[in-house]
């Protein structure tokens, strides 16, 4: 427990204005996108790296938990203060420190909103590609901690591919600098990629050297309707193997289509089993050439209708279908289990088939949609938790889904992370020795287990 002595010391570090213990404030920092909530005892808003370091030193001295937090939009409980203690809100470390146009690098603090960074670099003709669905409010620090993905990953890669270096405060309070301002560096161990995706369990990111790319100047958007799910997923491979690299290759199944139908200006016919949202970007000649090729792939195929957006309005309409899925799911049932397993692309049809089987057997409504281009499929199971039978069935179905994904050579999470929601399933994918090594790293970095405790690793094994 944190006594007034600790609170006083914390006030001395961050200033009275940058600390709160008021219950109504604490509630705002208790939950994330999972809906799971645990109340912290105090929220601190550091304004510089030194303060972060001093808080960690204090946490070690008085043995309280510290949970770094960006916007709290995580999907697996990464920012939830499971063991109480202190939530370190990064909202005051939110400056873009530098945009180096010549070397295409941005130096930013962790609290910068991803969308804001994208807007700023766009002004100088550059882009920061990672685009998680939450980009309008999530922070780059949170993205780095979780190694966030997004639709553009199929062409550009995920967050780890856009981080050149980091400033990190270790649980001991020591300040570490990793990586370099160069595209290539093999000087020492690659700690940058180790911290990225470590879900705030190994260190607190206080500065990020982000890699930028030239802004793509041209874009074409397509919506493909298919009367066969299998044909649609096979088409994904055909497109990618035809030397076409879309920036977006999203798919949605029949259930997903059915819930967004009434939001569309031109809803697809009832016979449509799957839709693909495809976007090409880059230099104009290249985009137009790829457009021709892609249209040629669909020519004469009865299973498919391809629509090519001609106006910005049509583009928005096409995206409307994809964007409306998540919010519309709750029209089906009040609760959702949202998973983001990834499988090798050729196994997508098997995965989808299996979810249909699960839905039938367990009386759940299951929809699948997402990043077909990289095999990262969002499986949403809709249920009513107040119905104990459904709640139990949901739990069982998740268990089976993970087992099956691993059996298909897939992984538990493509972009959301493990956090608390997937920790119990870690052993499905990683063997005991590997988990032991990961835990020994955690132990090495954070011997007192004060930094974001209770995440990633199954609790029973502790």
């Amino acid at each position, binding site marked *: 427990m944190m006594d007034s002595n600790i609170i006083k010391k914390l006030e001395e570090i961050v200033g009275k204005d940058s600390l709160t213990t008021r219950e109504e404030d604490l509630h705002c920092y208790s939950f994330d996108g999972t809906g799971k909530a645990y109340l912290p005892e105090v929220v601190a808003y550091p304004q510089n790296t030194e303060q972060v370091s001093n808080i960690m030193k204090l946490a070690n001295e008085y043995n309280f938990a510290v949970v770094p937090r960006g916007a709290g939009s995580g999907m697996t409980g990464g920012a939830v203060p499971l063991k109480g203690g202190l939530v370190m809100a990064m909202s005051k470390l939110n400056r873009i420190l530098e945009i*180096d146009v*010549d*070397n295409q690098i941005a130096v930013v603090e962790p609290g910068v909103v991803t969308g804001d960074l994208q807007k700023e670099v766009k002004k100088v*003709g550059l882009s920061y590609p990672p685009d998680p669905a939450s980009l309008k409010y999530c922070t780059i620090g949170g993205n780095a901690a979780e*190694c966030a993905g997004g639709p553009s*990953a199929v062409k550009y*890669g*995920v967050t780890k*591919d856009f981080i050149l270096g980091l400033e990190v405060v*270790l649980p001991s309070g*020591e300040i570490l600098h990793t990586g*370099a301002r*160069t*595209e*290539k*560096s*093999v*000087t*020492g*161990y*690659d700690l940058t*990629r*180790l911290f990225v*995706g*470590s879900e705030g369990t190994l260190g607190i990111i206080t500065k990020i050297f982000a890699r930028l790319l*030239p*802004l793509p100047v041209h874009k074409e958007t397509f919506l493909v309707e298919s009367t066969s799910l299998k044909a649609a997923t096979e088409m994904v491979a055909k497109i*990618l*193997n035809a*030397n076409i690299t879309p920036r977006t290759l999203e798919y949605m199944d029949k259930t997903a289509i059915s819930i967004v139908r009434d939001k569309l200006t031109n809803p697809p016919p009832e016979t449509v089993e799957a839709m693909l949202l495809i976007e090409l970007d880059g*230099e104009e*000649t*290249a985009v*137009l*050439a790829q457009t021709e*090729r892609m249209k040629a792939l669909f020519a004469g195929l009865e299973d498919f209708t391809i629509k090519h957006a001609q106006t910005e309005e049509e583009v928005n309409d096409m995206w409307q279908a994809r964007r409306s899925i998540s919010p519309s799911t709750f029209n089906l049932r009040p609760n959702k289990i949202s998973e983001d397993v*990834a499988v*090798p692309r*050729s196994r997508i049809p098997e995965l989808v088939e299996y979810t249909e089987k699960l839905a039938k057997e367990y009386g759940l409504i299951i929809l699948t949609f997402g990043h077909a281009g*990289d*095999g*990262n499929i969002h499986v949403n199971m809709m249920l009513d938790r107040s119905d104990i039978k459904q709640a139990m069935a949901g739990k069982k179905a998740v268990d089976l889904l993970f087992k099956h994904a691993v059996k298909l*050579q*897939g*992984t538990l*999470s*493509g*972009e*959301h*992370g*493990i956090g608390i929601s997937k920790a119990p399933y*870690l052993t499905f*994918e*990683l*063997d005991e*020795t*590997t988990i032991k*090594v*990961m835990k020994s*790293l955690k132990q090495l970095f954070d011997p007192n287990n004060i930094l974001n405790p209770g995440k990633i690793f199954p609790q029973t094994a502790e």
Partner: protein
Amino acid sequence: MLSKTAKEQLIAITGKDRFSDAVEILTCYSYDSFLEEAMPEAVLFPVSTKEVSEILQVASAHKIPVTARGAGTSVCGAPIAVNQGIVLCFTKMDKIIEINTPDRYAIVQPGVINGELQRALAPEGFFFPPDPGSMNFSTIGGNVALNAGGPRCLKYGVTVDYVLSMEVVLASGEVIRFGSRNIKDVTGYKLSALFCGSEGTLGIITELTLRVVPCPETAQTLMVTFDELDNTAKSVSDIIGSGILPVAIELVDKVGMNALENALHQDLPTEAAGTLLIEVDGIKESCEREIEKITDILKKNHAVSIIKATEEADRNRLWAARRAAYGVFAKIAPDILSEDVTVPVSKVPEMVRSINSTIGKYKLKGGVLAHAGDGNMHPFICADRNDKEEWAKVEAAFKEIFTDAAALHGTLSGEHGIGLAKTQFLPLVMDEASRKFLTTIKRAVDPDNILNPGKLV
């Protein structure tokens, strides 16, 4: 010395055929492409993960240093057994286990030669992008251990970007597996990042799942000459700044080009102060458009001549000289020291100037090659190590080059690794806390310091 018991236990694992402590054999495993040499006490040729695990259990019990070795092409001394002990040579673990083009991965043992993997992928229309200069003889295991780069890494990224999953034997002999066959995977810590590039100091790689990508349908190559090195370097930063991402932009200076011509007689542009080799790939229409744009930039920067090659044979001809570079330079003098400092791309002109002025100041024979598009410079100096006075100058020159690169926000090594060669210079680019932390990790993973001791940290 390897005790009798240890030796017996090791032979019991591999059999007599795959164990050797004969001096004439050990000598072959005492060096790489760097300058140092050290004789191991024994060399073993495991054929399976199980054998590697058993060998490490013996090594742990007797605290015998273990140095993993692929083809020994490292240029930083990474596979040199400086503390003796045993060399684990992976030439017999050289199988391609699976190639899966629909899901775009290949599963290989560490001893597979990079070039062989390329040849196995080519008929399927795929390739493995990392292309170190040694690709025709270096092994994938060595490439991953050192996080190797190469010319086309400018567009495609380096080795770590292509490692999906690894099987690694720890110092204790325990076997761990992490990653999966999926491009997106955030399950647990990214251990592949830690082990890739760790130069055999954290674990021994026994199997790799690698990402492979489809071959581009076309490529075009330009050879461009300049009468000023500054214009050459400026063109590089202008091209990158314009938003085009070529596969490779290689820079060769006058010293380098003359050495190449003397050895190869290919009618190379020996008068040019700087020469660029630029390649773009992708779909035909965009290649052409990119070449047009690049040509405009080159002309603005006063390019003297521009030769374009579209056919594969012609492109190979342009590349032949660049690919031969290391071998040619190594013959200029008894020894060659080639480093790979890397700077942000806008600093390429400044770094090239600074390297040349340093080499000039010490009156040494040398010059600069570079994977210029990603700022990865290869300054080289040819000298005789037995000439103590001259060699002292070589060392002083490189110290200056490292210092200058660090001052330009650069790093010591872009692709070769730290190994033996550069440990002393780490303080230039890494503060004490960060250096100490590398050691902390090393100690935690390998408490008895038996894995490739004396390297990297």
